[in-house]
Structure formats: structure tokens, C-alpha cells
């Protein structure tokens, strides 16, 4: 056999894992518009082959000693060449597997959730587009290649948020997400250009080597790190670009689970992990990252405490968990950040998919309404949601507990205690808002319980929901078990890289965080769960604080203000004036001049044939005289 597939199985597997969804996307867009069922079949088939390839790759290269890379020359212009290819190292292998698993589960789940939607084929086309872009992003060889797929992922996100485009709020949310992430991406691109000009190469392996520190001044290195981090802020919805993510919940719930919690928003953190050695050259940049991660984490947790929309609570918690990851990475805990990324992908997808079952069943996003209409009667989603919520709150023995403890341990190593204090505050808030939601859904207020029977009658369509239960059960199992794979994963991830891991030995942090989580759980039980509780949180008793949190720290108001004052009234007004006065004016003047000239010389046109004949003759004679003599 001389086939390359036999010689280079790794290459074939990577190509299968990344490009099959692209094939599925093209097939669906071109041929399968009128066949939604086949479209779903093609998409799921592609993503399952992708999943098998990814898992196979992970197993095959579990004892990877050096990164595998494969490159072909893509663009050559002058002495600048841009290669295109694959880079497989532990981080990208792990991320590829996570993405493929969640993509697969969510697509299967969507069979139930999206059943009967008129845009079914479109949904699966976009899902395939996303799967292609996201898997390709993870194995990108250069930053340019990563940037291309980064933008494609953003496009898929825009299309899927605005999937129900007839709804005004959905299309607005899509636009908002697109524009806000674009701000970050512009910074990212500038950072890339800066690296390209001063370093001359965007190969991730070279950037992560020792050479950038030798060839670039520390100042330039810091500036380019900060600019690239701008892209991370946009994509991972960190402070101050965090308000697009809650609005992105207008999309279908499986989309929120896949893109806006588990994988796409994690792409920002993934980029951070990817360029971790490069960023570590600049201590100043790392300090900024740490601060931004902390602010996002605390801010988003406070916002989650007052939201009644079940999906928005998870959206805020996603921001805050991403903040945790950024904190962990910025504090130097490479494995802590990546491990939390992995566990978070599992339990957050679980939480979203569970909420999806409730939303699909009851047709509302309001957690009080869901609780009132008997949310707890859906046994499997309820149990899975409690598992996911406990993982989110960091309760043992679930996966979130292990990864969060790692991050807290890294933060406790810092000399400044403010970071670990903020992280512990975050633990408290997270446990509080998570169980607030659980208690509201599972212990509706007694006076409303009478109406609970009202909701019983629409249990008939429960049979079609069975398909949606399996992904939940699998994810719940992953959430339960993943924490115990901490040691092998750490061995796998850290081996290739010379990263100093913290020595650990911060037992007090473990007990403090467990204690705080328990107190928060008790507090939320006291306010929401116990018999006779009035279900009013302590935040709601302080109107000023409540408004502050519910208005998202007035960040959106501030953007709206800036937009109105400077963009609409300043720049847009100037542009409009230029348009009306200069461009319209000159064109109007031109046409008016033409009309007037025409009027003025119209007397020549008498409409009489014989005058014309005369003029023709005279002209001919004159011309003849001119040429002859």
C-alpha cells in the first residue's frame, strides 16, 4: 500500500477530524436544502467521524514526546511565507477532543430540540460550519491560520445567535455579538501585525520558544501580548466586552451550550493556553490579564445573582468561569487553567442542555415560571442539572471541584493575597447563585403549587424528549468522573512544556473554599429552598445594589451612551453631512447643470426634417471644402 493514509495515519486522522464537517456544510448548503432529515444525518455522520478521529488521535499520541507538525506553503510573498498546516501537541489534542465530543453530543441533542423547526437544515449547516472552524482552530499551525478560523467561528456564532432572525431581539443580539467581538479582534490583529513586523514569523512553536524574548524588546513583547489579549477579551467575553454573551442566549439552547459556554468562548482561553510561554515573558502583561480575569469573574457572578432568566444565569456563570481560567493561567498555572477549561466544557454544556429540556418543555426561560409549572417532575434533567450545578459550585467529588481547587492553589501562591480573596469571594457567589436557581426550580412557593397541576397536561410530548436525555446522561457521567483523571491529564499536558507548577500545600484554601461554598449553599437554601421561604434574596433587599447588578454594572448603559453621544451624534452626523452636502450636492449640481444646458440648446432642435437636411448639406459642403482645399 502506497496510500498516504497508510503512511501518514496521523495526518489523515487530523484531516478527517477537521475537514469532514466542512464537506458536510457544503453538501447541506448545495444539495440538502429540501431534505432536512438527510441534512441532519450528514452533519451528525461527519461530526461522529470527526469525534472518532479525535479520540483516536488522543489515544495514539498519549505518550507524545515532541509536538507533531505538518506544513505546506500557502502564501509566499517576497521573503514572507505563510505556511498552512497542523500542529498537534497535548493542548491542541485535548481541546480537539473536547470540541469534538461536545459538538457530537449537542448535535444529537438538537435532533430532539430542533425537531420541526422550519430552519432545520440551516441549523445543521451552521453547526457543521462551526464544527469545521472550531476543530481547525484548535490544530492551527500559525497564528494567521488560527486568526482565520477564529473569525469563522465568530461568523458561525453570529449566524446561530440570529438563527431565529424573525425575532428582532435575536438579530440584534447577533449583531451585538459580532460587533463587540470585532473590537477585540481588531486588537488581536494589530498584535499579530506587531509580532509579524518585529519577529517576522507567526509560527506558534517558534513564538513559544525562547527566541521572541531574544529578538524583541520587553516593551514590544508586552504591547503585543496585550493586543492579542484584546482578542481573548472579546471572544471569551471578559471585562469590559462581556455584555454580548448574555444577549447571545437569544439563540437556540443547544447553540448556547456548544458555542457560548463550552467551546467557542473557550477559544479565547485556549489561545491564552496556546501562547502561554510567549505571554509569560512579560510579567506586566500577565498582571493585567490577572486583573481582568478577576474583575470579569466577580462582576459576572454578581450579575448572575439577580437574573431570573435561566439561560442568562448560566451565561453569566460562563463569563465568571472563563474569568477563573484566565486568572489561573495568568497566575502561571498552565495546567490549572487548561484543566478547568476541560471540566467546565463538560459541566457547562450539561447545565445548558438540561435548561434546554426545561425550556423546550415549558416554553419559557423564566426559572420561577418553570418551577411553578412543575419543573422538578422532569426527573432526568433535574438530577443532571443538580450534578452540573454542584460541579459549577465546586463541590466534591465532581470535576469542577478538582479544577477549581487547582486554580485557587495557584492563586494562593501569589504574594498578594487579594487575588485568592477575590477568587474565594467568587466561589461563594457561584455557589449562591447556582443553588438559588436549583432551589427556585425544585421548591416552588407553596401558594403557587396549586397551579403546578396545570402544567401536567403537556407531558404527552415527553416521548420525543427521550433523545435529548442521552447526551445529558453522558455529560453527567463525564462530570462525575473527569475529576479523577486529574493526574494522568496533568502528566499528559505538562510533560512537553517547561512550566513551573505550584508546589501546592495550601490546605487552608481547600477548606476555606469548601466552607464558603457550604455557607453559600445554606444561605440560598434559607432564602429560596426552605419551607415558607419568601424567595427574596439578600441582594434584592438592597435596591441600589440590585439595580447595579441587574443593569450589568451599567456597562451596557455606558456603551449606549458612548454610542449615542460620540458615534451617532458625532461621527455619524458628520458622515451624514458629508453625504448630503458634498456627495449628494455635487451629483445634484452635475445633473442640474446637464438639464439646464439641455434646455438652453434645445432651440436647435426644431423637429423639422428639411432644416436638418439643409444643415447636413451645408456641413458636407464645408467638410468637402475643408478636406479638398
Amino acid at each position, binding site marked *: 500500500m502506497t496510500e498516504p493514509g497508510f503512511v501518514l495515519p496521523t495526518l489523515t486522522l487530523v484531516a478527517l477530524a477537521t475537514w469532514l464537517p466542512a464537506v458536510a456544510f457544503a453538501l447541506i448548503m448545495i444539495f440538502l436544502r429540501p431534505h432536512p432529515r438527510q441534512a441532519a444525518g450528514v452533519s451528525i455522520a461527519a461530526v461522529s467521524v470527526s469525534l472518532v478521529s479525535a479520540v483516536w488521535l488522543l489515544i495514539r499520541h498519549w505518550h507524545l514526546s515532541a509536538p507533531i507538525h505538518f506544513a505546506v506553503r500557502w502564501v509566499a510573498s517576497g521573503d514572507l511565507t505563510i505556511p498552512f498546516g497542523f500542529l498537534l501537541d497535548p493542548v491542541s489534542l485535548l481541546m480537539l477532543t473536547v470540541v469534538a465530543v461536545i459538538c457530537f453530543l449537542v448535535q444529537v441533542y438538537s435532533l430532539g430540540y430542533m425537531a420541526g423547526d422550519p430552519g432545520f437544515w440551516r441549523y445543521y449547516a451552521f453547526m457543521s460550519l462551526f464544527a469545521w472552524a472550531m476543530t481547525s482552530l484548535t490544530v492551527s499551525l500559525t497564528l494567521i491560520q488560527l486568526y482565520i478560523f477564529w473569525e469563522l467561528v465568530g461568523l458561525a456564532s453570529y449566524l446561530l445567535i440570529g438563527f431565529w432572525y424573525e425575532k428582532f431581539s435575536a438579530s440584534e443580539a447577533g449583531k451585538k455579538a459580532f460587533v463587540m467581538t470585532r473590537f477585540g479582534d481588531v486588537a488581536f490583529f494589530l498584535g499579530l501585525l506587531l509580532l509579524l513586523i518585529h519577529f517576522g514569523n507567526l509560527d506558534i512553536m517558534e513564538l513559544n520558544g525562547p527566541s521572541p524574548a531574544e529578538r524583541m524588546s520587553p516593551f514590544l513583547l508586552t504591547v503585543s501580548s496585550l493586543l492579542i489579549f484584546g482578542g481573548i477579551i472579546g471572544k471569551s467575553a471578559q471585562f469590559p466586552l462581556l455584555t454580548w454573551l448574555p444577549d447571545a442566549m437569544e439563540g437556540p439552547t443547544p447553540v448556547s451550550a456548544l458555542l457560548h459556554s463550552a467551546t467557542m468562548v473557550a477559544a479565547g482561553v485556549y489561545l491564552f493556553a496556546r501562547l502561554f510561554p510567549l505571554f509569560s515573558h512579560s510579567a506586566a502583561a500577565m498582571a493585567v490579564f490577572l486583573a481582568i480575569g478577576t474583575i470579569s469573574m466577580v462582576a459576572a457572578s454578581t450579575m448572575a445573582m439577580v437574573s431570573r432568566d435561566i439561560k442568562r444565569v448560566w451565561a453569566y456563570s460562563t463569563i465568571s468561569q472563563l474569568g477563573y481560567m484566565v486568572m489561573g493561567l495568568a497566575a502561571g498555572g498552565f495546567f490549572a487553567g487548561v484543566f478547568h477549561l476541560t471540566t467546565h466544557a463538560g459541566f457547562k454544556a450539561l447545565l445548558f442542555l438540561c435548561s434546554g429540556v426545561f425550556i423546550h418543555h415549558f416554553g419559557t426561560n423564566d426559572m420561577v415560571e418553570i418551577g411553578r409549572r412543575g419543573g422538578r417532575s422532569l426527573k432526568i434533567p433535574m438530577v443532571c442539572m443538580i450534578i452540573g450545578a454542584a460541579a459549577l459550585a465546586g463541590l466534591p467529588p465532581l470535576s469542577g471541584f478538582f479544577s477549581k481547587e487547582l486554580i485557587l492553589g495557584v492563586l494562593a501562591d501569589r504574594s498578594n493575597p487579594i487575588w485568592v480573596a477575590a477568587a474565594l469571594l467568587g466561589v461563594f457567589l457561584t455557589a449562591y447563585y447556582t443553588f438559588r436557581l436549583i432551589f427556585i426550580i425544585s421548591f416552588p412557593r407553596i401558594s403557587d403549587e396549586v397551579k403546578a397541576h396545570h402544567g401536567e397536561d403537556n407531558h404527552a410530548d415527553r416521548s420525543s424528549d427521550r433523545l435529548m436525555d442521552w447526551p445529558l446522561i453522558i455529560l453527567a457521567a463525564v462530570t462525575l468522573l473527569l475529576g479523577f483523571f486529574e493526574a494522568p491529564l496533568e502528566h499528559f499536558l505538562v510533560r512537553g512544556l517547561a512550566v513551573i507548577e505550584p508546589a501546592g500545600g495550601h490546605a487552608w484554601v481547600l477548606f476555606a473554599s469548601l466552607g464558603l461554598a457550604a455557607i453559600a449553599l445554606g444561605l440560598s437554601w434559607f432564602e429560596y429552598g426552605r419551607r415558607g421561604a419568601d424567595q427574596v434574596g439578600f441582594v434584592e433587599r438592597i435596591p441600589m445594589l440590585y439595580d447595579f447588578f441587574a443593569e450589568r454594572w451599567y456597562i451596557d448603559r455606558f456603551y449606549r451612551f458612548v454610542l449615542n453621544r460620540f458615534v451617532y451624534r458625532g461621527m455619524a452626523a458628520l458622515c451624514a453631512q458629508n453625504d448630503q452636502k458634498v456627495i449628494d450636492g455635487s451629483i445634484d449640481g452635475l445633473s442640474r447643470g446637464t438639464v439646464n444646458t439641455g434646455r438652453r440648446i434645445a432651440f436647435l*432642435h*426644431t423637429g*423639422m*426634417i*428639411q432644416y436638418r*437636411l439643409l444643415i447636413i448639406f451645408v456641413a458636407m459642403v464645408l467638410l468637402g471644402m475643408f478636406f479638398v482645399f
Partner: protein
Amino acid sequence: MIVSFGHVLVLSGLLFLLGAVCAVVRRNLIMILLGVEIMLNAATIAFVGAALRWHDMEGQVFVLFIFAVAAAEVSVGLALIIGVYRRTGSVDPNNFNLLK
């Protein structure tokens, strides 16, 4: 040679001028058509003279072509004039200025 080529050209030029004046000044469509025909025939006279002068039969062949074209043109032109007359009751070209 009985008639010199110069005389033939003068005759043809005079006829052409007459035809042109007729086409320009007369206020009757039929007369305008007639003027155009006279101009064509003036050209044929010049062709015949030139054929004689250079002993080349191509000039006479052209005359035959011009006859054929002139006959076709007159038939079409007269048909148009009759159509216009039936429609408007007039053959004065100054009345036909709708396109102005």
C-alpha cells in the same frame, strides 16, 4: 470621345444641386422624395461618365445596382407617404414634429 468627362461631371453636379435644393425647399413629401431620386440619378451619371473615361465596366454595374436600390427606396418611401397621408391628411413635412 463626344462629350468630355468634365462636362459630364458638371451636368451631374448641377443635377445633384437641383435635387438637393428640391429636397430642402419644397413643402411636399413627394417632391422631397423626387429630389432625393434626382440626387441619386446625378450620382449615376457621374458613374457612367467615369466608366466611359477609364473604360471600366464596374461603373455601369454600379448604376444598375443604384437603379435597383432607388426603385426599392421609392416604393417604400411612397408607401410611407401614403400611410402618413391617410393618417393625417397632409403631406407637409412641417406637420410631422411629434418627436420634438
